[in-house]
């Protein structure tokens, strides 16, 4: 017995109706994939870089790297967040940031041996020496770098748990500082960021 459908059926036994259905299905799948691809392309087109720095140290020397990197990254137009925790909070502390000290012990590159460096008052001496060097070299002050970071919309965060641990008050920090944030906030930002640094 021979019908039109049988005659035009391919070797695989498909009828034109089957083929048409399959083609329609494939077309729909292609459209679907193209839509998905467009979404992915939109996502990767966003070349806005971002950086998160976790600042944990509050000595005069260790306050510099996060502030220098943050302000420079902001100059590149990146989104920058600096999450300050433990002694890093002192960088954002209005009073304490103006009086960051250099430790004279524990650094073998210091010009004074540790035995002498551990004499009370030596930190004040080495801090004074460092501040003079910074001024002589016309290196930006911590104040200047902080102002720059705030002016360039760097997101400065102060970890809530350590604010309480260190007996600080939320009002002790500069106005533009974000308080009430914790490790989860930092991690969430770090997961999205292109660069993550712990200082």
């Amino acid at each position, binding site marked *: 017995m021979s019908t039109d459908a049988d005659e035009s059926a391919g070797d695989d036994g498909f009828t034109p109706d089957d083929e048409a259905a399959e083609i329609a299905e494939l077309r729909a799948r292609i459209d679907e994939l193209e839509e998905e691809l467009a979404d992915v392309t939109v996502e990767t087109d966003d070349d806005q870089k971002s950086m998160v720095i976790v600042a944990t140290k509050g000595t005069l020397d260790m306050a510099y790297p996060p502030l*220098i990197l943050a302000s*420079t990254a*902001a*100059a*590149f*137009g990146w989104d920058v967040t600096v999450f300050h925790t433990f002694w890093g909070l002192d960088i954002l502390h209005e009073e304490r940031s103006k009086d960051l000290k250099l430790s004279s012990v524990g650094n073998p590159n210091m010009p004074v041996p540790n035995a002498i460096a551990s004499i009370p008052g030596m930190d004040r001496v080495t801090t004074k020496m460092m501040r003079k060097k910074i001024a002589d070299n016309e*290196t*930006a002050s911590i104040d*200047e770098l902080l102002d720059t970071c705030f002016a*360039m919309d760097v997101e400065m965060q102060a970890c809530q748990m350590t604010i309480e641990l260190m007996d600080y008050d939320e009002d002790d920090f500069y106005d533009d500082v974000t308080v009430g944030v914790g490790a989860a906030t930092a991690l969430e930002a770090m997961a999205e960021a292109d660069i993550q640094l712990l200082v």
Partner: protein
Amino acid sequence: MPITDTIIKAQYSIVQCRHNMSLETDVTETLDVKGASCPMPVVKSKQAVDDLAAGDLLEVVATDSGSMSDIDGWASGTDGVSLVEQEERDEGGETVYVHYVQVEE
């Protein structure tokens, strides 16, 4: 043929000179960051560029030798700006580093 060389060199210097002169006359704004060290030349350049319009040319005058690499790196890594030229000049015994940064259209 040394005489031809001399002529070529002289012509080249004139071209160079004209090129630099035209750059200088095209400058929209000059930013003086003499004395400032890293990261301020870059940071201040960015702040200056933000106040300029497309097509404007910013001249950055620095004494920080690191600015040669830093301004170059910043300009190539930042959207909307391009480095046109950099040069080292002697200003009364002091070396200054001059950068020409163009705000892109």
